[in-house]
C-alpha cells in the first residue's frame, strides 16, 4: 500500500496550518472569481503569481490550484441563479440549472452541483495519486525525442479542442512558440527578438502574456457590451434533494465524474470540455430528453461533476510529464518555474512533499468548498450586486500592481498593456488565446528537446519515427488532425461548439 503511504505524506504537508490557510484562501478566491463574470482563473493566477514569491513553493501551488477548482464551484452558482456563467466551464449548467431555479428548485440545483463537484473531486484526487506514480516512471524513460513528440501531441490536442478554426489555433500555437523563445538563447548566448531592449533579454514574462491576453482584453470586451443582469431575488430555500431527484442525479454524477476524469487527462482537455461532453451524454442517455433545457437535474449534476473532475485530473500530465494541457496548467508551469521547480517526472522523487502535499490539498480544498459554499451563497450573491463599472477598475488595479511587482519595472506593465491590445485584436479576429499561451510556455522546452534529439541522432530527422514511443505519439497527433479534418467529424465538431 505504497499509495496510502504517499497520501499520508501528502496530508502531513497539506494539514500544516499555513497550508490549510492557503488552500482555503485559494478555494475562496477561486469561488469568488468563479462567481464574478469577466475574470477567469488564468488572469487570477497571473495576478497572484507575483505575490507567491514570498511563500514556500508548496503553499504557493496549493493556493493557485485551489483557484482553479474553486472556480468550478463558484461558476455554477451564477449559472444557476442568474443564468450567466461565471466561468466558461459552467456555461452548460445555465441550461438546466437556471430553469430549476425558476421553478423554485434553486436550492436543490445548488446542492447537487456542490455534492457532485465534491464527489468528483474525491474520485479525481485518488485518481491523480494512483496514476501519477506509474506515469512518472514511464516519463523518466523519455528521451528528448519522446519529449518533443509528446509536446507536439499536446499542442495539437490543444488546438483540436479549441473553439473555432483549427488552422487559426495552430497559428496561435506557433506564435506562442515564437514569443516563448524571445530572450537569450541558452546554447549560444545570442539574444533573440529582443530589439536591443535589456528587459527582453530575459524573455517575456508569462504573467504579462497571460494577464494581457486573458485579463485586460476580457475587460475591454466586456465594456463594449453593456451589462444586463437579472438576479433571481426570491429566497433560496430547500437545499435538500427529494428522493426522486437524488435517484435521477446520482448516476449522472457518476458518469460525469468518469467523463471528466478521462477528458481531464487528455491534451487540450480540462474542465470546460468535460462539462460539455457530460451534458451531451446525459441528454443522449435520458429517458425523456425533452426535459433537458427545462430543468432536468441530470443536466446540472453531470456537467458540474465533470468539470470539477476534469479540473483536477488535468494536473496529471503537468505533474507527471511536465506538459501543461490547458491555459491554467500553463500558468502552473509559470508558478513552478518562479519557484525554481522544473515541472516533470522528477518532481515526484526530488520533491515528494510538494508533490503529494499538492494532491492531498486538492481533496482538502474540495472538502472546505462543499462545507463553505452553500452557507456562503448569500454573500456571493451580494457581491454580484456590485456593478461592473466599479468592479473592473479594481481588477485592473490589482493586475497592474501584480505585474509591476514581478520584476519591479514599469516595462512589464507596458508590455502587459501591449498584450492586452493584442488580445483584443485576436478576440475580434476570432483567434483563441489559450493555444498561444500553451505554445509560449512550451517554446523553450520544445526547442531544447528538438535540439538535443537531433544532436543525438546526428541530424537525422527520422529519429522521431524510429523510437517507438515517439512514433506512437506522433501518429496519435497526425490521427487527431486527420480525424478532425474529415468533413463529417468537422461538421459535428462545429455543432458541438455551437451548443
Amino acid at each position, binding site marked *: 500500500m505504497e499509495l496510502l503511504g504517499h497520501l499520508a505524506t501528502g496530508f502531513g504537508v497539506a494539514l500544516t496550518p499555513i497550508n490549510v490557510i492557503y488552500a482555503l484562501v485559494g478555494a475562496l478566491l477561486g469561488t469568488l472569481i468563479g462567481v464574478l463574470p469577466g475574470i477567469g482563473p488564468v488572469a487570477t493566477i497571473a495576478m497572484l503569481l507575483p505575490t507567491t514569491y514570498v511563500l514556500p513553493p508548496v503553499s504557493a501551488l496549493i493556493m493557485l490550484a485551489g483557484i482553479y477548482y474553486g472556480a468550478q464551484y463558484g461558476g455554477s452558482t451564477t449559472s444557476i441563479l442568474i443564468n450567466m456563467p461565471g466561468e466558461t466551464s459552467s456555461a452548460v449548467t445555465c441550461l438546466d440549472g437556471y430553469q430549476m431555479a425558476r421553478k423554485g428548485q434553486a436550492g436543490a440545483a445548488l446542492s447537487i452541483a456542490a455534492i457532485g463537484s465534491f464527489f468528483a473531486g474525491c474520485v479525481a484526487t485518488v485518481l491523480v495519486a494512483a496514476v501519477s506514480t506509474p506515469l512518472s516512471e514511464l516519463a523518466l524513460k523519455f528521451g528528448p525525442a519522446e519529449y518533443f513528440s509528446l509536446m507536439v501531441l499536446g499542442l495539437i490536442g490543444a488546438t483540436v479542442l479549441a473553439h473555432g478554426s483549427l488552422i487559426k489555433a495552430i497559428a496561435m500555437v506557433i506564435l506562442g512558440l515564437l514569443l516563448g523563445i524571445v530572450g537569450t538563447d541558452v546554447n549560444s548566448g545570442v539574444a533573440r527578438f529582443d530589439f536591443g531592449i535589456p528587459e527582453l533579454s530575459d524573455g517575456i514574462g508569462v504573467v504579462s502574456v497571460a494577464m494581457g491576453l486573458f485579463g485586460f482584453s476580457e475587460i475591454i470586451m466586456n465594456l463594449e457590451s453593456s451589462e444586463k443582469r437579472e438576479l433571481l431575488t426570491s429566497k433560496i430555500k430547500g437545499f435538500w434533494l427529494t428522493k426522486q431527484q437524488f435517484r435521477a442525479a446520482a448516476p449522472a454524477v457518476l458518469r460525469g465524474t468518469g467523463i471528466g476524469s478521462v477528458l481531464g487527462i487528455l491534451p487540450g482537455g480540462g474542465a470546460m470540455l468535460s462539462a460539455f461532453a457530460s451534458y451531451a451524454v446525459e441528454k443522449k442517455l435520458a429517458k425523456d430528453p425533452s426535459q433537458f433545457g427545462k430543468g432536468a437535474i441530470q443536466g446540472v449534476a453531470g456537467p458540474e461533476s465533470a468539470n470539477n473532475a476534469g479540473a483536477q485530473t488535468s494536473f496529471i500530465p503537468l505533474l507527471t510529464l511536465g506538459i501543461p494541457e490547458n491555459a491554467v496548467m500553463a500558468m502552473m508551469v509559470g508558478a513552478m518555474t518562479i519557484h525554481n521547480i522544473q515541472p516533470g517526472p522528477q518532481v515526484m522523487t526530488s520533491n515528494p512533499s510538494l508533490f503529494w502535499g499538492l494532491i492531498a490539498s486538492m481533496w482538502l480544498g474540495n472538502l472546505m468548498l462543499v462545507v463553505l459554499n452553500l452557507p456562503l451563497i448569500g454573500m456571493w450573491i451580494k457581491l454580484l450586486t456590485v456593478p461592473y*463599472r466599479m468592479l473592473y*477598475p479594481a481588477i485592473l488595479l490589482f493586475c497592474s500592481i501584480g505585474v509591476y511587482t514581478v520584476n519591479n519595472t514599469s516595462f512589464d506593465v507596458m508590455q502587459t498593456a501591449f498584450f492586452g491590445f493584442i488580445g483584443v485584436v485576436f478576440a475580434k479576429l476570432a483567434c483563441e488565446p489559450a493555444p498561444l499561451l500553451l505554445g509560449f510556455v512550451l517554446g523553450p522546452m520544445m526547442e531544447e528537446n528538438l535540439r538535443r534529439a537531433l544532436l543525438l541522432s546526428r541530424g537525422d530527422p527520422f529519429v522521431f519515427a524510429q523510437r517507438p514511443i515517439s512514433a506512437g505519439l506522433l501518429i496519435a497527433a497526425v490521427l487527431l488532425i486527420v480525424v478532425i479534418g474529415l468533413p463529417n467529424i468537422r461538421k459535428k465538431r462545429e455543432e458541438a461548439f455551437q451548443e
Partner: protein
Amino acid sequence: MIRIRNARDFCGGLLLTAFGVFALVLAHGYPTGSAARMGPGYFPNMLGMLLVAIGATLVVTSLRRDGARLPRWPWRPTVVVLGAVVTFGAIVPWAGLALSTVALVFIASAASHEFRLREAAVSGIALAVLAVLVFGVGLKIQLPIWPVFFG
C-alpha cells in the same frame, strides 16, 4: 476580379503572415547551423516559415469562402483601459502607490458608459487605501507608497 469574402479571416491571415515575415526578418541575422548542431536561428526560422504558410492559407481561403465581416473595434474601452494601465506603470515608480492607484481607477472608470465623477473619486480613494494596506503594509512590496521627491 478578386473579392474578399471573409474579411475577418482575410485580416487575420494578413496579420499572421506579417508576424511570420517579421520573425523571419529579425531571425535573419541569427546563425542557423545544421540540424545536428542547431544555431539560434534554426527554430525561429522554422516557426516563421510555418506562420507565413498558415497566414497565406488563411488569406487564400478568405477569398474563396464567404464568412464573417470585420467586427467593430471597441475604441473607447481599449484606449481608456490600456491608457489607465500605461499611466499607472509610468508614474508608479516616483508618484507612489497611493496616487497612482487613484489615477488608474479614475482614468479606467471613464471607459464605462455610465461614468460618474463622485463614484470614481470615492472608489479611487477606497482602493488606494486597500492597495496600500494589502501591498504596502501586508505584502511589503518594493514600491514607494508616497511620492518620491528628487533633490
